[in-house]
């Protein structure tokens, strides 16, 4: 089951990413429990300490809270907070890389906008 993890980025980050994706997709609504450290470790054949690090990252960002003796739960408003965080990240990394690539390809701003618009229309962005 390690197959879903890769060696392109640190494992604990991938674990954090995985849980974040789950929260965003609505798999883990507010105040529901997320998989425990041990469950994650067992599922991905990784060291529980690494899994814990991933979970703690979300705790530090206020996305998860701990209920003693029971486990980790999604904080209310986590999905919204995540969306916000990812939007900021989107601008900083993906947009930047996207525009740079366009620059490398020698596109003008106008050409770039038309490409984006075409795709946005196809995806039916409101």
């Amino acid at each position: 089951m390690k197959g879903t993890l890769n060696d392109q980025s640190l494992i604990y980050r991938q674990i954090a990413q995985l849980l974040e994706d789950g929260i965003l997709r609505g798999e883990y609504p507010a105040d529901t429990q997320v998989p425990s450290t041990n469950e994650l470790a067992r599922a991905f054949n990784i060291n529980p300490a690494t899994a814990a690090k991933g979970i703690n990252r979300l705790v530090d960002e206020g996305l998860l809270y701990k209920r003693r003796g029971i486990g980790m739960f999604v904080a209310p408003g986590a999905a919204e907070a995540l969306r916000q965080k990812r939007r900021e990240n989107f601008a900083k990394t993906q947009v930047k890389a996207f525009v740079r690539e366009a620059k490398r390809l020698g596109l003008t701003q106008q050409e770039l906008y038309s490409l984006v618009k075409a795709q946005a229309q196809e995806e039916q962005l409101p």
Partner: protein
Amino acid sequence: MTTITKAPAPQPLQADKLCKNYGKQPVLQDLDLTFEPGRIYGLIGRNGAGKTTLLGILSGQNYATGGRALYGGQPVWENSAVLGNLHFAREMSAASELAGLSVKNFLRAGRLFCPYWDQNYADELIKKFELPNKMINRLSRGQMSMVSITAALASRAPVTLLDEPTAGLDVVARERFYRILLDEYQRTGRTFVISTHIIEEAASVFEKVVILDEGKEVADQNTEDLVEQFRYISGPAAELDAALAERGITPLQTQVLGGHKMVAVRGEEALFEELAARDGLTVEGMNLQNVFVALCGHGDEEG
């Protein structure tokens, strides 16, 4: 008659200024290391770096030329109080002194001598590994590894050292081993120190990693923290060289392809962000195997 004595919690295992020479040849030089209790360590290094020797000395299977091995502050060598807490699973070969035994007799000795031996667990593992009761020197290499692993796990020793446990195991068997190891770790919190050549596969199992190079310790920290300090930087040779010179960085590894160059660099997050901001340069992460080669490849230049 068989009462399973519950194993005590593991204690720190320490190499204290450890030196080892084989004749005139120094294999370990002034090694200072502590293996913290309750963690899974990876011990990696090139052939001849001293991994097996280190593990042997730490478990009392080998003696130090200088310095000492300590467990919970007590010397390990010839110390009955301490030896029961340690187990060293060696790579077995048909030439080993123990190879004339049958699997059953070998494990029976384990049951006799290991204070925390769990026979039920041993039986479970024998079944899981499908080990026949043959002479050890008649087994395949993979089966020999599995016998060694079985004894190591069933010993329930608070600190267990494994030397290349996955030698001779195919991928499926290796995955099975990691799973079994992690299960046991989650159950008991034993300390495991595992030396391996199959680095990337095992990296996610190791909480901490110790890298040995020519008998000296080159790294001893949390796996992911270590990997975080390294990046591959690539770009046009001129620009790359300029950027590196500007910040006074010496690359660990260099690869040249035409006018394009790629280097392995160690540094801080801030540095990498700076470098990534530069237009012509690409900054990529490295995995543990890459880091190891960069640290111990001694600047092999390619291209």
